[in-house]
């Protein structure tokens, strides 16, 4: 019980310390606002922040879904065809190792001028795609070959082998990839928005830029807090999904019980 409450207690303690120090040392709000001032800013900008959060959340979730579909799809293709894997995997790696901020201006010029949301979506998807692909490829490669043979002996179709064997066998790795990709989708969406500047994107990153330009530091912090909340929520949702799928049988989930 104490272990569960420990992070909360620590957090509240640090917030209190922060509040006290800001007041006692009389730190000006444009350097470091007090938690109280941040809370007020959040309340004041509530409606706008909420809209921005929905915008960022939507881009993030769309990118995550797209990255999951593409990552899984390519991983399935790679498992079926060695030629396809040999041909495409190097390019997937190139896409992965090229820093997203360096591609972002290009994508925003090509796509973003007409449709900024599509540009953000593409960029966030590129960031989130690779961990799902590489983990799924690893998962599919570690399917027990004897079970594969057994399925063949029982006359299973290609789809049955995929659905009843490959997908569940690879699910621990796929979920591990999705957990990484969830956080990266958010990072991708925010980075893309930063590069796009205020050219139409209206998410939380844009709020941070705007507030920064006007030296409204409490508002900056308010948007930052909401970004963290989003990140934590995504992580918790994916952890819950992982638990749902694995808790009955997989060692990683059992050890926690």
């Amino acid at each position: 019980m104490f272990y569960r409450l420990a992070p909360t207690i620590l957090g509240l303690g640090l917030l209190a310390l922060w509040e006290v120090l800001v007041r006692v040392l009389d730190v000006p709000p444009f350097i470091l606002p007090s938690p109280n001032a941040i809370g007020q800013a959040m309340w004041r900008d509530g409606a706008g922040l909420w809209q921005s959060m929905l915008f960022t959340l939507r881009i993030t979730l769309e990118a995550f879904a797209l990255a999951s579909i593409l990552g899984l799809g390519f991983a399935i293709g790679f498992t079926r065809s060695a030629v396809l894997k040999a041909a495409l995997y190097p390019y997937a790696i190139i896409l992965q190792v090229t820093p997203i901020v360096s591609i972002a201006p290009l994508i925003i010029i090509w796509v973003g001028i007409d449709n900024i949301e599509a540009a953000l979506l593409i960029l966030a998807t590129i960031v989130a795609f690779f961990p799902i692909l590489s983990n799924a490829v690893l998962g599919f490669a570690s399917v027990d070959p004897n079970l594969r043979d057994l399925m063949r002996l029982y006359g299973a179709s290609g789809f049955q082998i995929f659905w009843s064997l490959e997908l569940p066998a690879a699910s621990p790795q796929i979920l591990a990839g999705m957990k990484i990709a969830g956080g990266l989708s958010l990072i991708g969406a925010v980075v893309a928005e930063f590069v796009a500047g205020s050219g139409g994107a209206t998410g939380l990153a844009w709020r941070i830029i705007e507030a920064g330009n006007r030296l409204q530091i409490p508002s900056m912090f308010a948007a930052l807090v909401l970004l963290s909340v989003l990140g934590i929520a995504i992580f918790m949702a994916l952890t819950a999904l992982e638990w749902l799928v694995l808790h009955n049988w997989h060692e990683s989930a059992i050890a926690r019980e």
Partner: protein
Amino acid sequence: MSFLTIAGITKTFADGTQALGPLDLNIDQGSFTAILGPSGCGKSTLLRIIAGLNPASQGGIGFGDGLKPEMGFVFQEPTLMPWRRVHENVALGLEMRGIDDRAQVQDAIMRVGLEKFANAFPRQLSGGMRMRVSIARALASRPALLLMDEPFAALDEITRGDLNDDLLTVWQSAGFTSLFVTHSVFESVFLAQRIVVLSERPGRIVDDIRVDAPYPRGEDWRLSVEYAAIARQVSAALRAGHHMQVAGGQG
């Protein structure tokens, strides 16, 4: 007409490894045959060819009525799906054919004595119990031919003895044809009506030994004079098969 005819098969893998043969063998309907040989002599390869999982390089496999019979396969490891409960693992073969026959699954689970564990996950079971699940899975689709590839090699002596007893009971009541690969002389003599001894790689038949003791076989069979005599004969054949390789290697 025998149940299974193996005619002149050989297997050479793509990398040039000569794994098996040439080998001829006729198996009778309902019989229990042990295939015994040193490790690496091609026993698994032979079973996989019979199951149709690998093609032979030469020769062929024929079945009495011309049709491929229903087959069950038991590997050295239990090879279960850890995300499926025991009864779901056992139902796998039926499920792949779109058959939902709970009674048949239940019956297979009962035959291996796991009715109390039908809802357990494999991780909750001991090694011996997992092997029982694996056997139940093979039994559930009512095979005419049960192929077993050193199924008990990884188990401790006592568990192995129990499983040997239970396997014989199941075989006697269900009436399928058994091909049982092992590298244990004693296991082969205890279980089989016939012991086919293979040479070192590429596996060829060194000896084909009948074991006439009646079933059910129990502890008294293990302690009998005939048992010891056959075990000696089988061991001698294994040694002869080993020398065949050495002689061939020098030639």
